[in-house]
């Protein structure tokens, strides 16, 4: 079942990806083909099969709660596209009163 254009635009919105018109059309076609191919999984009866999220038996790995040095703030901020003092800068996320 091919994906509609609206579905592709909706996924792009969820994935926070700005796509060109050409990309939307190409992905509509390619994702439909891949999902068609993945439909073979529906042939298997997995009603009684538990899912595998990860393969090792470890759970709740704990470590001692000890203070150890963190990365220097300057090193961490060193890659920031935009910064002020010890903060990352982002465009406004709330509306500013006029």
């Amino acid at each position, binding site marked *: 079942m091919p*994906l509609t254009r609206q*579905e*592709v635009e909706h*996924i*792009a919105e*969820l*994935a*926070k*990806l*700005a*796509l*060109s018109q050409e*990309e939307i059309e190409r*992905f509509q076609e*390619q*994702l439909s*083909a*891949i*999902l068609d*191919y*993945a439909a*073979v*999984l*529906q042939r*298997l009866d*997995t009603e009684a*099969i*538990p*899912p*595998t*999220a*990860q*393969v*090792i038996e*470890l759970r709740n*790995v704990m*470590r001692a709660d000890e203070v150890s040095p963190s*990365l*220097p703030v300057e*090193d*961490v901020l*060193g*890659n*920031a*596209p*935009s910064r002020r003092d010890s903060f*990352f800068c*982002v*465009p*406004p*996320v709330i509306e500013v009163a006029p």
Partner: protein
Amino acid sequence: MELTSLTILEAGRLLRRGEVSAVELTESALDRIVAVDNQVRAFLTLTPEFALEQARAADERLAAARRSGEEDLPALLGIPMAIKDVLCTEGVPTTCGSRILEGFLPPYDATVVERLERAGYVLLGKTNTDEFAMGSSTENSAYFPTRNPWDLSRVPGGSSGGSAAAVAAHEALGALGTDTGGSVRQPAALCGVVGLKPTYGRVSRYGLVAFASSLDQVGTLTRDVADSALLLSIIAGHDVRDSTCVDLPVPSYLEALSPEIAGLRIGVPEEYFGPGMDPGVEATVRQALRQLETLGAQLEPVSLPHTSYALPVYYLIAPAEASSNLARYDGVKYGHAAPGADELWELYKRTRGEGFGAEVKRRTMLGTYALSAGYYDAFYLKAQKVRTLIRQDFDRAFEKVDVLAAPTSPTVAFPIGARVEDPLQMYLSDIYTLSLNLAGLCGISVPCGFVDGLPVGLQILGRAFDEATILRVAYAYEQSTPWHTCHPNLSVGQGVDPAGS
């Protein structure tokens, strides 16, 4: 003998005896890179000054050891190596083959890099990769494709194509790669080198830029099996900074190597010789299986009945995990930021739209879809359930046999550009390697011959945390065949040039 064609162990012996210096070894590698990398294009970043600085330090250490009679030197002292550009190297650019991380300087080293450093290695540079390790040909690098040293018109495989090509072209003595669905083993096969993918949990992934967290593993690319055993013994082992890294003792993998495999039970999974396989590759791998039999191993046909489902399972689970992992590239903390965005959502969308390449966008879209409301059960959960069936296939096979032997890739290296327009065709390159990652087991690809002058890989698959046995089988096979002594002849273009001929 050329210094650049030495194995790590051979070079280590010469260094310890003082017959060559670390600076000479490093300079010869850097000269080789200058001579051939404009053809091969294995490296994204070179670190010649850092390399020579590390080499000089190694020489001082070696000289001091000779004066004091110290014998217990770090295993990689003075050995020039390359690192796939998805592993963080402090202060050295780490791009993941992506524009979105152009100029990113990690503030810390990955654990595996730290361990190589502690073992005395010399960093030559960072190698090319498909963007965020998503690909099977290294053509998805945002910078340039790497070329196969055996035929420059063909791909080296991927996504660790830069590391495999650098080792095959004698630019580095060994390299680290990463394997999420075959990304160490497949390029190793296509470039005629040895590629080891350790068990999930065997090696720390701290500082590995995450692609699919339930599948990713760091692996090694080397000229022979003994070098893989050496590197694994250095990078393996518990790390408190990676909670998925298991606290189990690390055996001496080198000591476990033996040319003796008589009586070992080797399963041959019939599903790994299916349609779509190149007849020349099949004949070459079948010949390798006969060789294992000649060495005294018992071959037994086994069945992994859910093998044909591995590809769709992988291409739902890996993109789903990737879509979550890659949410961090938002133009705020590091990397590319779209200029002029005056609102936060717009910054995210435009940054990602500009910074990611086609395959990363495709998989992010696919993964987001598979995880989205209304489709989660039908796609993601279904894939996780079939993943259980794939694991159970291996559990049953390993009740009867010690290891499995199969082809690594259904074809030899394909021409650059041949599969870029057809993602499904590209995904089929990994059809014999994906299942192992889904089951979390270990595997190794070892050269087993040539088809039309292009290398073919034999894959040995093993039980969880039983790297010692797959290394032993690969070693016994390698030592009884000439393939690991064949090197591409870059100066005259192409062709097989067995050493000593």
